[in-house]
């Protein structure tokens, strides 16, 4: 697979703290220090969460002077919705196939 992710995006957003970080980042880009302050966490704990989010490309770092600001990557979230839509489509197709089979089975029983 060419689009290999180290972290599964579902796993990444399953964690409440990471969801809170993402929500905050949708409003503004933040540095790890500010995030640590807002969540009352150690800088290390924040870094771990950021690493997970960055590995599945939900956040992107941007260097600004001596600080690194993390941005929310809305495109990745859209990608997730796109794959889910495809998954939904697969199920829909299968069920439509099943409709036809069931109606044939009903005919045969008559």
């Amino acid at each position, binding site marked *: 697979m060419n689009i290999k992710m180290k972290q599964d995006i579902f796993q990444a957003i399953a964690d409440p703290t990471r969801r809170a970080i993402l929500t905050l980042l949708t409003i503004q880009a933040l540095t790890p220090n500010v995030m640590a302050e807002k969540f009352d966490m150690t800088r290390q704990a924040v870094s771990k969460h950021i690493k997970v989010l960055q590995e599945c490309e939900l956040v992107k770092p941007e260097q600004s002077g001596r600080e690194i600001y993390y941005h929310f990557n809305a495109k990745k979230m859209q990608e997730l919705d796109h794959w889910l839509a495809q998954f939904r489509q697969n199920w829909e*197709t*299968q069920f439509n196939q*099943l409709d036809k*089979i069931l109606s044939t089975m009903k005919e045969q029983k008559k």
Partner: protein
Amino acid sequence: MNNDLLFDFTVDKAAQKIFITREFNAGLSLVWDAFTKQEIVDQWSAPAPMRCQTKYMDFKVGGRRFYAMILPDGQERWIVQDYTSITPKTNFKLYNAFADKDENRELPGSEWDHNFSEQNGITKVNITIFNESLERMQSLSEGFRIGYTVMLTNLDELLATLSQK
């Protein structure tokens, strides 16, 4: 044909759960058979143009279905489903995981819970999938896209040959 029949697909991303509900215009026994008998399951459980082929299926608790999703270009994606719980014509649960052609599973997989109920000749099926992984779905969809592209290319060639005649 199935315009009046309910189809609902909901994703709880935070809880990693997918809820699928579908109604079928058939009695419970028939729908149950369609989900649990190999010769019927194989006819519908891969979205066209993919098809599926079951190597073996032993529908009982502790039993297994080992099957392949076959892409239009002939590529195979093997899947193992282990049945963990069965209440006839009411519910069955399975553990779904991708595998290689020798039946070695790629863990972790996902848990699937199927519920069946009938009202006025319409059977409702509720499927809940726990711990689905985007990565797995992505690899399947990607394979599907590639396979589909190959198939369309074949069609292009076929049409080109036909139109030359």
